[in-house]
């Protein structure tokens, strides 16, 4: 026993170490070169006839940079676009259109970094995007075109819109007005906040760069997808702003050398979300506008609207990299290219310079700057300035680094084309970042995870005799570890769990039928759980392949005036929880009355009517506050879900101040937990030694936990908890053995995770409820709330699984202490007798479970099975990441999966599977 505990502890300690070691090797911290770039000698001065440190004259001295969040290419360029003015500029040759390829992760902060520094942000930025206050993520000390423009003589910047920019560039802006994207239901206010500054800023001439970041279009996408009826009006609104700014550039003297850039930071998929690497998400529009551009576009074919390139969905015009914006802006505005840039000057603009030597100079500065990064990455290779003209080399070398070195040497004695070729090759090589893995660490991490698997394997409950359910558990684990190596299965992981759960529940039905046949088999508990499972899996459509397909949440059932249906379900969920809480409080009243002289011990007095009534009155404010909070939050967050509800009521609720209400809910839950715990402790102390409690406190904690989870769940998902509750009830009727319960727990935790709308994509992380009750930004609290809101389903079923394991709170929760010896033996009671005997047997089984091995044996067996699962899943994700580290999808599919595996392994396994379940199991024995 002691050896097992030791091995289990060791196996559990190895998991976080393995994860951390692996993570440091997998997401290496990318060092960046500090300081601002300056023009330096190119070394070819005498050959080309340049003056030392001379710079080709820049055509522009002012920049208006307009970012429209999630402006996908087709929103601007396609036939159905709502931006006719931009299209007319393209036709007239005053605008140069591109599709700017955004690399994954397609979320705002890393994209802004890419646009401004020209570098390819490391995946670490995803985590930093959530921990926004983190100072390492600011660009204050990095070289960007903003810093370059600010460093210029009379350099002043102004910024309006998304406050991500203010966080990235603290104290950069002369004037600013940041808007936060807290409620995505806000389509108009966020944008009006930006637009109202535009007219007056266009009259000011003290700035040389104005940055605007509009969020409304992204919000519409998140709410209702790219085909929302609000989408076209929003595009028209943006088009009008472009028209205003463009006509100011045409008419105002001080703006005549202004370059106007309109771009999206990322696109959106068919569901309106972003973060992954679907074509829609990675294809934002990029338009450069100025009357002066007619010099460049002169004789070109100018067409708009157009259709995307053959075989692609969103590739309009030429595809450039998003990072190309940085060197292009630097060249056009006459500042040095930012130091960490990996972008390539967009060659269409070379037409601004008539002298070929100016063009070469421009590109060569860009190329030299990139070469410095390449040199730092491949220090062993020779990038020396070989000036002797050699024979043209065939640059096909075995290693990418050598290939680059060779291409660089070609640059030194060749033309524009060779320079561009080198830069493009360098960009491609450097953005794959494959060379940055710390492979030994990856291997150490994976081997630690594997040794945890081996250790936990020895702590498993007896493997013999081989039982079908034990076999099924192992089968799930084995299949899962294989699936982790296929990108499609990682993206569509929910399918695996839905599939395995259906089969498992059907197996439970078959296995129960082997023991006794239920005449009405359609109503068999296992079949009922299966039916519920079928409904639950359709609640939220998740995954990549069918993102945005029909599901229950998006059906008209809950929308508009029908939303009363949703709120009826939400209301009943809250009433159910409140009602169950009142039972616990009633018991606590009885417990305290018992102390004050009135003799009420354990037993039927739990449901003593006056107490129940008093308790319900006492708990009602808590339940009602929680419900009002949900209503108020939804009014602001998702007004389309509150259509059928009285306007005045909603206005009153929305005016309450959500932070305070949320705090009241959490405070009330804490207070109730304390009260009930004290009462149950008194009851447990008052009981005779040999009488066991019913584990009422465990059930009470479970119900309070449910209320927390409800508070952290979006309104449209709350009815799921009613279904979860029913599943729990039917499962408790099945009287499963411990291994089956662990299997069920595992399957349902995973199923509920995906059913609540999560997937293995960064875009599925829901941030909306993670600020409940918090007014400022606090990494720890927001992190906890974020975890609870996204892992709400798994947390629920972990607790439910422990209750089932301990035999609490289900259909057979109240112990009857049936004395079989006193039973009558007459014919007409024989059937009843058999029934009672069966129940007595089941009670004995549960009883034995609780007392075995000091009461913790069953729990530790559950934990060792779950540890095996966590170890195997973590190890297989790690192995997949090692084996497939050169894979095309490593940054889009496998790295996000590893981030999720980290959260499962560190957050879920430790805090929930061990911490929370240990707590519930412990108090269940009071």
């Amino acid at each position, binding site marked *: 026993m002691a050896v097992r505990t030791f091995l289990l502890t060791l196996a559990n300690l190895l998991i976080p170490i393995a994860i951390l070691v692996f993570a440091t090797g997998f997401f290496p911290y990318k060092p960046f070169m500090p300081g601002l770039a300056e023009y330096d000698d190119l070394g070819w001065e005498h050959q080309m006839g340049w003056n030392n440190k001379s710079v080709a004259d820049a055509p522009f001295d002012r920049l208006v940079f307009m970012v429209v969040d999630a402006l996908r290419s087709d929103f601007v360029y396609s036939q159905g676009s709502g931006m006719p003015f931009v299209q007319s500029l393209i036709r007239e040759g005053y605008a140069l259109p591109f599709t700017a390829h955004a690399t994954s992760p397609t979320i705002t902060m890393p994209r802004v970094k890419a646009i401004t520094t020209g570098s390819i942000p490391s995946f670490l930025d995803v985590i930093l995007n959530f921990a926004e206050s983190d100072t390492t993520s600011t660009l204050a000390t990095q070289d960007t075109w903003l810093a370059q423009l600010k460093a210029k003589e009379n350099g002043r910047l102004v910024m309006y819109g998304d406050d991500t920019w203010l966080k990235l560039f603290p104290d950069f802006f002369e004037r600013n007005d940041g808007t936060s994207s807290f409620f995505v239901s806000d389509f108009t206010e966020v944008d009006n906040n930006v637009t109202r500054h535009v007219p007056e800023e266009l009259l000011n001439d003290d700035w040389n760069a104005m940055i605007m970041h509009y969020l409304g279009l992204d919000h519409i996408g998140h709410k209702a997808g790219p085909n929302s009826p609000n989408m076209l009006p929003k595009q028209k609104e943006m088009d009008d702003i472009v028209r205003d700014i463009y006509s100011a550039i045409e008419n105002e003297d001080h703006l005549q050398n202004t370059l106007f850039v309109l771009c999206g930071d990322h696109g959106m998929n068919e569901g309106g979300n972003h973060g992954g690497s679907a074509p829609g998400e990675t294809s934002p529009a990029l338009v450069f506008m100025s009357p002066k551009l007619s010099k460049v576009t002169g004789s070109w074919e100018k067409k708009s609207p157009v259709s995307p390139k053959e075989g692609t969905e969103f590739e309009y015009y030429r595809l450039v990299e998003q990072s190309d914006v940085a060197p292009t802006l630097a060249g056009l505005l006459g500042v040095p290219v930012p130091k960490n840039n990996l972008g390539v000057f967009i060659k269409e603009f070379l037409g601004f310079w008539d002298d070929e030597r100016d063009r070469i100079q421009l590109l060569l500065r860009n190329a030299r700057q990139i070469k410095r990064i390449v040199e730092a990455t491949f220090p062993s290779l020779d990038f020396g300035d070989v000036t002797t003209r050699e024979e043209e080399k065939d640059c096909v070398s075995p290693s990418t680094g050598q290939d680059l070195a060779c291409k660089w040497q070609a640059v030194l004695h060749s033309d524009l084309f060779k320079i561009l070729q080198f830069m493009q090759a360098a960009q491609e090589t450097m953005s794959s970042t494959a060379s940055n893995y710390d492979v030994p660490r990856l291997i150490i991490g994976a081997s630690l995870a594997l040794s945890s698997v081996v250790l936990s394997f020895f702590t498993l409950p007896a493997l013999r005799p081989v039982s079908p359910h034990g076999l099924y558990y192992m089968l799930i684990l084995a299949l899962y570890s294989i699936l982790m190596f*296929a990108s*499609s*299965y990682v*993206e*569509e992981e929910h*399918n*695996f769990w*839905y*599939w395995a759960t*259906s*089969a498992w529940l*059907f197996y439970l039905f*078959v296995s129960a*039928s*082997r023991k*006794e*046949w*239920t*005449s*009405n*088999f359609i*109503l068999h508990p296992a079949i009922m759980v*299966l*039916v519920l499972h*079928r409904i639950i*899996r*359709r609640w939220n459509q998740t*995954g990549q*392949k069918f993102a945005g397909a*029909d599901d229950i949440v998006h059906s008209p059932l809950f929308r508009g005036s029908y939303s009363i249906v949703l709120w009826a379900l939400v209301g009943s969920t809250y009433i159910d929880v409140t009602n169950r809480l009142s039972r616990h409080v009633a018991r606590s009243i009885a417990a305290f009355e018992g102390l004050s002289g009135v003799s009420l011990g354990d037993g039927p007095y739990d449901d003593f009517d006056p107490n129940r009534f008093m308790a319900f009155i006492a708990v009602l404010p808590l339940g009602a506050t929680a419900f009002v909070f949900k209503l108020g939050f939804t009014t602001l967050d998702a007004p389309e879900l509150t259509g059928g509800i009285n306007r005045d009521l909603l206005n009153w609720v929305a005016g309450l101040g959500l932070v305070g209400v949320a705090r009241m809910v959490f405070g009330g839950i804490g207070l109730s937990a304390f009260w009930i715990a004290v009462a149950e402790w008194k009851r447990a102390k008052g009981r005779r030694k040999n009488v066991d409690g019913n584990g009422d406190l465990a059930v009470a904690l479970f119900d309070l936990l449910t209320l927390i989870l409800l508070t952290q769940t979006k309104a449209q998902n709350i009815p799921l908890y009613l279904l979860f509750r029913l599943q729990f009830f039917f499962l408790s009727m099945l009287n499963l053995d411990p291994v089956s319960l662990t299997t069920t727990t595992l399957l349902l935790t995973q199923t509920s995770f995906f059913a609540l709308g999560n997937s293995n994509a960064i875009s599925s992380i829901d941030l909306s409820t993670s600020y409940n009750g918090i007014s400022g930004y606090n990494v720890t609290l927001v992190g906890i709330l974020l975890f609870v809101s996204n892992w709400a389903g798994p947390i629920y079923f972990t607790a439910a699984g422990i209750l089932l394991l301990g035999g609490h709170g289900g259909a057979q929760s109240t112990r009857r202490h049936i004395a079989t010896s006193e039973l009558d033996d007459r014919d007409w009671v024989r059937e009843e007798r*058999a029934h009672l005997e069966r129940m007595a047997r089941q009670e004995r089984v549960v009883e034995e479970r609780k007392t075995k091995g000091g009461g913790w044996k069953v729990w530790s067996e559950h934990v060792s099975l779950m540890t095996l699962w966590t170890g195997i899943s973590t190890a297989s994700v790690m192995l997949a990441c090692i084996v497939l580290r050169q894979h095309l999808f490593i940054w889009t599919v496998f790295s996000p999966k590893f981030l999720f595996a980290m959260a499962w392994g560190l957050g879920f396994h430790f805090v929930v599977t061990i911490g929370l379940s240990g707590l519930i199991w412990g108090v269940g024995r009071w």
Partner: protein
Amino acid sequence: MSTTVIGGAPAKPRAPATPIDLLNNDTAKLYTHMHPILVLSLYAYQFPSIVADPVTGLTKTLIPLSILQVVYVALCLPPTGSGSGSASGQPEKRKPGEKKKVVPGKVESGINGKIIPAFLSLLLSTVVAAPLLTTTLVLFGAPITTHHAHTLLCGAHIAFLSIIPLVYVHGVDGATWREAVALLLPLDEVYGGMLGAVSGAWLGAIPIPLDW
């Protein structure tokens, strides 16, 4: 919910089911090996049209499949009520005083004893088993608002493949069917075929997430 207990406590303990043997004649022994090949080649032949247009393809395949299955059960399997398969070849034991049965003509007995049960099991599979299996498919995740014809045809195919032989040999005895659900029947050619068809349908869902 009332429950009846199988085994142990109930008043009438049932004899454990015995495996079904094939008919003891050469045609049966030969055809039982040809049948899977025929069924498989039917699907292989129809595969392009099923992929091109699932509803039409599956509907068209259903008719030859039903003929193949009816022929198979009639040729190879002992019909329900004939006792265990091995008994059919042996001389009939008569109890004292029992009337000697009128032995029907060979063709007539063939029709009465085989063709009619075969068609009855086809009918039952279509009317009862196919909807039941379709419901099960929906329960396992088949779409509920769209693709009704697809799901129904899938259910019908599984029913024809797995249920026709089972109905033919076991009839509609409730207890036997309960045993079939509870995996208590002995694993013979018929029952094994059904288990194979059903678990094959389950395993067939594996490639769904793939996008090639």
